C-alpha cells in the first residue's frame, strides 16, 4: 500500500501577514459571515430609516447590548468548556435584588456592586458543585437552579416585590454616559463596562493558561484529564465566572431601573445569551467558540431588534426572525463540520489507517 501522507509540506515559516489577513485572524474566518450579515442588515435598515445612523440611536444599541452582552461573555466560557448554564437569568435577578438591598441599607454603591457579583459567584459555585461533585449533567443541573435561584431572588426581596434603590451614583452605571462633549451624546457607561469585560475575557481565553486549558477541556475532557488537567477545579472557575458576570448584569439592571428586580428585566436572558454564543460560532459539544464571535452576534441581535423597532415591525416578527437566524447559523456550522469530516475521511482512507 502507498503511504500517502496528507499535504506533504512541512511546517511553513511564518510569513508577514497582510492587514486583511490579520483582520481575519482576529475575527476568525467563521465570523466573516456574521460581519457580512451585520453589514447587509445595517444597509437594509438605514435605507428605510434615517434615524438609524444617528449617534443617539447607535448608543442606544450599545446600551441595550450591555446586560445580555455580559451574560453572553460568561456563557461563552461555559459553552467552550462543554457545559451550559441556564440559570444565569435567575442569578442576575437574585443579584439585582441583593445589590438594591445593599445600596439602600448600607448606602454604598461599591458595596452593591461587590455583593451583587458576590452572590453571583456564590450561586455559580453552587452550580459547579452540583455539576462537578454530584455529577449532574450541566443542562439538568442549571435547569434545576434556574428555578431555585429565581425563587431565592423573590425570597430575599421583602414581600417578593421589587426593591426601590434611588441612588444617583448607582443610576450612572445604568444610564450614565461619559464623553458628553457638545452635540455628542456620550458613550453609555454600561457599554464601556461590557467592552472592558469582553476585551479582558478575550485576552483570558486566548492568552492565559486558564483560557487555553478551557478549550482543551471542552474539546475532549477525557484527553484533557489524561494530560493532567484538573477538570473539577476548572468547572468551579467556569461556573463562578458565569455567575459573577450574571451578577454584574443584575447590578446593571438595578442601576438602570433604580430598583432591585427579582424577575423583570432578567427573564429570558439565558436564552438570548445562548443564542448569541451559538450564533457566534461555538459548538454545543465544546472546545470551540470565541468572545469576538459572541460579541458580533450580540451586536447583530441588538441591531436586528433595534432596526425592527425603528421600522415599526411588531415584536412577534422579531422573535421569529431571531429564531430563524439561529437555525441558519447552526445549520451552516453543521454543514462546515460535515465537510471537515468528509475531508478527514478522505485523508484517513489515503493515509494508511484501517
Amino acid at each position, binding site marked *: 500500500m502507498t503511504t500517502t501522507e496528507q499535504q*506533504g509540506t512541512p511546517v511553513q515559516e511564518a510569513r508577514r501577514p497582510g492587514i486583511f489577513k490579520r483582520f481575519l485572524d482576529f475575527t476568525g474566518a467563521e465570523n466573516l459571515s456574521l460581519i457580512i450579515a451585520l453589514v447587509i442588515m445595517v444597509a437594509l435598515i438605514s435605507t428605510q430609516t434615517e434615524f438609524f445612523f444617528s449617534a443617539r440611536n447607535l448608543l442606544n444599541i450599545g446600551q441595550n447590548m450591555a446586560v445580555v452582552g455580559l451574560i453572553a461573555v460568561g456563557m461563552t466560557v461555559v459553552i467552550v468548556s462543554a457545559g451550559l448554564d441556564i440559570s444565569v437569568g435567575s442569578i442576575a435577578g437574585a443579584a439585582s435584588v441583593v445589590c438594591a438591598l445593599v445600596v439602600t441599607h448600607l448606602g454604598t454603591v461599591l458595596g452593591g456592586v461587590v455583593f451583587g457579583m458576590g452572590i453571583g459567584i456564590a450561586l455559580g459555585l453552587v452550580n459547579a458543585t452540583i455539576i462537578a461533585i454530584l455529577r449532574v449533567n450541566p443542562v439538568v443541573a442549571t435547569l434545576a437552579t434556574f428555578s431555585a435561584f429565581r425563587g431565592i431572588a423573590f425570597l430575599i426581596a421583602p414581600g417578593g416585590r421589587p426593591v426601590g434603590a434611588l441612588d444617583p451614583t448607582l443610576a450612572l452605571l445604568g444610564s450614565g454616559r461619559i464623553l458628553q462633549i457638545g452635540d455628542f451624546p456620550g458613550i453609555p457607561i454600561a457599554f464601556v463596562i461590557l467592552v472592558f469585560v469582553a476585551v479582558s475575557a478575550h485576552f483570558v481565553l486566548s492568552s492565559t493558561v486558564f483560557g487555553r486549558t478551557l478549550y*482543551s477541556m471542552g474539546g475532549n475532557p477525557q*484527553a484533557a484529564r489524561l494530560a*493532567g488537567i484538573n477538570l473539577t477545579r476548572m468547572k468551579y472557575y467556569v461556573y463562578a465566572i458565569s455567575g459573577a458576570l450574571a451578577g454584574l448584569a443584575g447590578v446593571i439592571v438595578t442601576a438602570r431601573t433604580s430598583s432591585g428586580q427579582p424577575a423583570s428585566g432578567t427573564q429570558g436572558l439565558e436564552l438570548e445569551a445562548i443564542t448569541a454564543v451559538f450564533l457566534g460560532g461555538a459548538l454545543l459539544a465544546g472546545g470551540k467558540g470565541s468572545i469576538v464571535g459572541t460579541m458580533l452576534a450580540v451586536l447583530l441581535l441588538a441591531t436586528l431588534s433595534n432596526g425592527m423597532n425603528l421600522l415599526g415591525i411588531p415584536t412577534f416578527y422579531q422573535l421569529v426572525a431571531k429564531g430563524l437566524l439561529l437555525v441558519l447559523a447552526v445549520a451552516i456550522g453543521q454543514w462546515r463540520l460535515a465537510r471537515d469530516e468528509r475531508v*478527514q475521511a478522505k485523508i484517513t482512507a489515503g*493515509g494508511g489507517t484501517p
Partner: protein
Amino acid sequence: MSMSSAILEVHAVGKSFPGVKALSNVSMQVHRGEVVAFVGENGAGKSTLLKILCGDYQLDEGSLFLDGTEVSHASPLDARNAGFRLVRQEPEIVPYISVAENVFVGEYPQLPGQRVDFAKMRAIVNGMLKDYGFEGMLDVRALGNTLSPAQMHIVEILRALKDGVKVIAFDEPTSSLTKREADRLFDLIRKLRTQGLGIIYVSHRLHEVMEIADRVVVLKDGVPTGDLKIAQTSQDDIIRLMVGRELAHGYKRTETSTDRVVLEVRNLTSRWHKDISFQIRAGEIVGFGGLVGAGRTELAKVIFGALALESGTIRICGEVKKIKSPADAIQANIGFAPEDRKAEGLILVRSVIENVSLAVYARLARFGILRNSAVVSMVSPLVKKLDIKTPSMDMVVGKLSGGNQQKVVLARWLAAKPQLLILDEPTRAVDVGAKAEIYKLMDELAADGMAIMMISSEMPELLSMSDRIIVMRDGEISSPIEKKDATEEVLLNFALGKNAA
C-alpha cells in the same frame, strides 16, 4: 462448487483496509453437525472474518455460500435472513425492557391493532429455555439491566436460535462465564450439533477448542495456516501454526539498559489486578504482552492515576509517589500515550500547537499568561524532529492522518520530558512509514535514559522493541522474559495460560 454437505463455504475471501491486508485467500468449510474453531493471535483476522460472515463488513474478493446458494451479505439483516447468526462476545442488551422483549426486539409478535403479544412472546422464550437446557437460569420478565453477563449471553443465544438458523458462530463465548456455565454452554453446543447446525467457535482458550471442536482453522496475519481435525492434533501443533512469522518490519533496537531503576511497582492491587510487582530501569523498554482484556491498559491507567489503586506502592526513582490523578502522575514525571488516541489522547477540534503544549502550559507561562514565543519555540522543533506532516502548527489535529496524530501525542510527552513514558499500542492504526519513525524515536528516547513501558498486541513489535517482556493474563503477570529467551511461542504460552485450566 459447494459440496452438498457443507452448510457454509468460504471461498478465496480477501479483505483489505487502507494499508493493511486483513484477510487474503481464506477458504474453509463448515459442515452440518460440525463444530469448527477459529484460532489465531490478536489481529490474525478472526474478527474480520466473523464480521464479513455476519454482514458488518463486505468482502473484497471471493465468495460465500450458505446451504449451497451464493450469498452476498450486503448488510447484517441479509446475513440474518440467509441463516447466519453471531453470538457476540459483548451482547447488546436493551436495559429497561424484559428478557422476552430483548429476545424478540425488532420483530415482536403482534395481536390485532398493532398490540404486542406479550403472552406469546413469553411462552416462546420459556419453551426455548427449556429446550436448550437453560431452565431456571433466567426469568423472562426480568429487565435487561438486571442481568448477569452469563444471563445476557443466554439472551443473545436465544436471539440467534429463534428461527431460521443454519450456521451459528460464538465469539469468545466463555470469557464472561464461570466454569459451570461454560459446561452448560458446551452441552448446548453439542445439542445444536446433533440438530445439524453448522457451528463456528472462536476462542483464545485452546483447551476449550480441544474439548468442543471437531476441526480447527488456524489464521495468521489474515492467511489460513492450518485446517486440522482435532482428533489428529495437539495444542502445541496449533500454537506452532499460530506463530513463526517473519519479523517483517522488525526494528533493531540498540541495547541501552542501565542499572538505575526508574519505575518500581510493588504488590499493586486494584479492581483489575492482583498483586503485581515489576521494575523498569532507565534506558529500558519493557514490553507488555497478553491478550486483549488481560488488564494491560488498566495497569497503565492505574500507574498513571486515571484508575484507582487499591493497595501497593509505586516508586519513581526510588521515591514512593502517591498518585491519585493524572496531574499527580505528570508531577511525578510520568507520561502516558493512550491506546485510543482519538477518544483519550487528542483534542481533535484544536490545533497541533495546542495539543502538543497542553500538558506543560504551566511551564510556558508567567503569572498565568502564556508566553507565545515560548510555546512556539518549544513546539516547532518537536514538529520538525518528529516530522509531523501538517501545513501549519495551527492545523486542527482532527484533519491529520493517523500516523501524524500519533506523533502529536508523542510530541506532547517529549515536551513534558517524563522519566517514565507509558505507550499503549503506540503504532495502532499507523502506517508503515510512521511506524518505523516511531520505533526510531522510542529507541532514541531510551538511549537518552527514559524508561519506557510499552503495551503492544503485536508480536513482532514486542519481540523487536522490548528489552524484556512481561506477559499479562487475567490481571496477573508472568515473570519478565529476557529478550534473548523471548519467542512468539513462549509468549503465547504465557498469554493463553496453556498449562493452566
